[in-house]
């Protein structure tokens, strides 16, 4: 995972890369929780994401719940494989997929 934050700390871009499952999701979640304070616009770029397990979906859902109280969260560049996962799990109805 790579992420960048604008200077004012309000906009945060997160790029999820490769596969996200319960092996690496805790580390990602911990890193994001450290940075999330004060962020009003959070964007998850899934262009390089190949697979996301239910643990990864839970992380996205948690971030979404958190962002609801302080701003907005959007998921962009979702590829076909990941979109299929979002469809099967019903996450298309939970996430703000642009």
């Amino acid at each position, binding site marked *: 995972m790579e992420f960048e934050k604008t200077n004012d700390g309000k906009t945060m871009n997160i790029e999820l890369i490769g596969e996200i499952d*319960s092996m690496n999701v805790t580390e990602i979640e911990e890193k994001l929780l450290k940075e999330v304070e004060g962020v009003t616009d959070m964007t998850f770029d899934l262009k390089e994401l190949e*697979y996301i*397990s*239910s643990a990864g979906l*839970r992380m996205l859902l948690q971030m979404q*719940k958190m962002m609801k109280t302080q701003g907005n969260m959007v998921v962009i560049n979702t590829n076909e494989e990941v979109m299929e996962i979002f469809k*099967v*799990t*019903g996450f298309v*109805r939970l996430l703000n997929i642009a």
Partner: protein
Amino acid sequence: MSTKTRFPLKIKAAIIIIALSAVLCVVAILMSAIRFSRTNEENFKNQASDLAYVAALTVDGDAMKVVRDAVFEVFDKIPDDDVVLSDDWGSDAFNAQIEKFAFITDMPEFKKVYEQLSKTQTAGISTLASIYATDYDFSHSIPYALYLVDAAEEDPCLPGVADHADEADWESAEKHEPMKPYITNYDAYGWLVTATAGVYDSSGEYVGVICVDLDMNAIKANESSFIISLTATLVAITIVICIITLIIIDLAVIKPLNKLSDIAVGYISNNEDRKKFSDFKMRRRDEIGNLSGAMIKMENDIGNYIDNLTSVTAEKERISAELGVAAKIQADMLPTDFPDRKDIELYAAMTPAKEVGGDFYDFFFIDDDHIALVMADVSGKGVPAAMFMIIAKTLIKIRTTAPGTPAQMLWDINNTLCADNPSGLFVTAWLGILTLSTGELISSNAGHEYPALMHEGGDYELIVGENMPPLAAAENIEYFDEKIELKTGDRLFLYTDGVPEGKNPDGERFGTDKMLKILNHRHNVSPKELLDDMMRKVNEFAGESDQFDDVTIMSVIWKGGK
């Protein structure tokens, strides 16, 4: 227990010390010998010179002049070719030549000089070989040294014995200069140091020289006795020093090292009365003392570490045992009393991953004509997932036995789970209710994998419907009911994501295509056989890689309607 050392330090130290000592001895002996030999020779040369000088002063110069003149008178008459040298000692010609001078030994002057020389001869110098008077005769084509008086007791050189004069000899003699002692080694006379001093008569005229021969063999004997005693002393001292050094090394280094080594070897044994480093405390301020201190510290540290590790391990074992119990409780919650009926055949199985997980299946009869089928997967792993699974499973079962469609049931269950879910866990679930008499299957899908359905005579296909979010993800989700009319012999295959998402060592995933292919090769096998085959295929695919997720599957055949 003591470790055997193939090349003990003791032997190595001994070899090195003995070798170095030997070298030191040899060098010391050689240098002493050379030095001694030079000084000794110098001393004897000086002694010979002094002796010659004293003798030359003692001898009556006038008497010696008479003797010399008498010898020269006879010698001068001998033609060049007839001169016999001392090399021919004992030959007839030699004896004949000596005979011509015989009368001189009867002269009172000869006797006088002879007596004077004899006194010096008997003065008691052990290395003195002989003392005699000579002069150099230049009457012939080459110069000769002629013996005048010889005080030797054995084989004296009688007057008339002639030798070639060395060039240096006669040049110095002519100039009346003192002559340097020299060392000669002729067969006739042996190994000698010779010193000469000029003799002068009452009028101061040069009348010849007194020669003193010192025996080099006697001198050298003196020298070798010195070297032998020196060697003996040095070797004895060296041996004593070697032994003392080895004893010191043994006591100060080797014994303590062996002791530490023995303790180290015995350290791991569980023997209660094993020796400890701390029992062997060395109050020394050297490296051995440091080593002993370091070993004692290590011993204490390891002791503390082991105690720590033991308690941590015990704690871990306790937790592991409790987790094992949790996993067992969880597994026991899954029903295995599969129905034995004519209208339905059902089998289900779960292979848990290493860790306690959140997969579960369930089936139960709502009434005699309706059976509820559940396949669900809690997100995440471990104890939280397992606890959440228990809650979800219980809630589903309770709500399903009350009236309503699966979609209505999921609405209620979802809102109940959402009410108190700070951990953000959720459950994907497929809930179906099958009317056994008609084959009507009403199902609702909360974010779960699409089930596979096979109509009798056809292939398995995924039931792709409108999937809604999983349970506990968000409140007030409107789930959809899906209605399917089963025909006799239709088969339903339910599974969790452990099947399609199983990974092989190359990172490839099992996938639903492969799953469908396997199903479609087994249209007519029993549910148990199908599930056994599927489990085996999934395991084969995973190969060496650890099974990462729970794998849960269920196979249902509806046989009613006939």
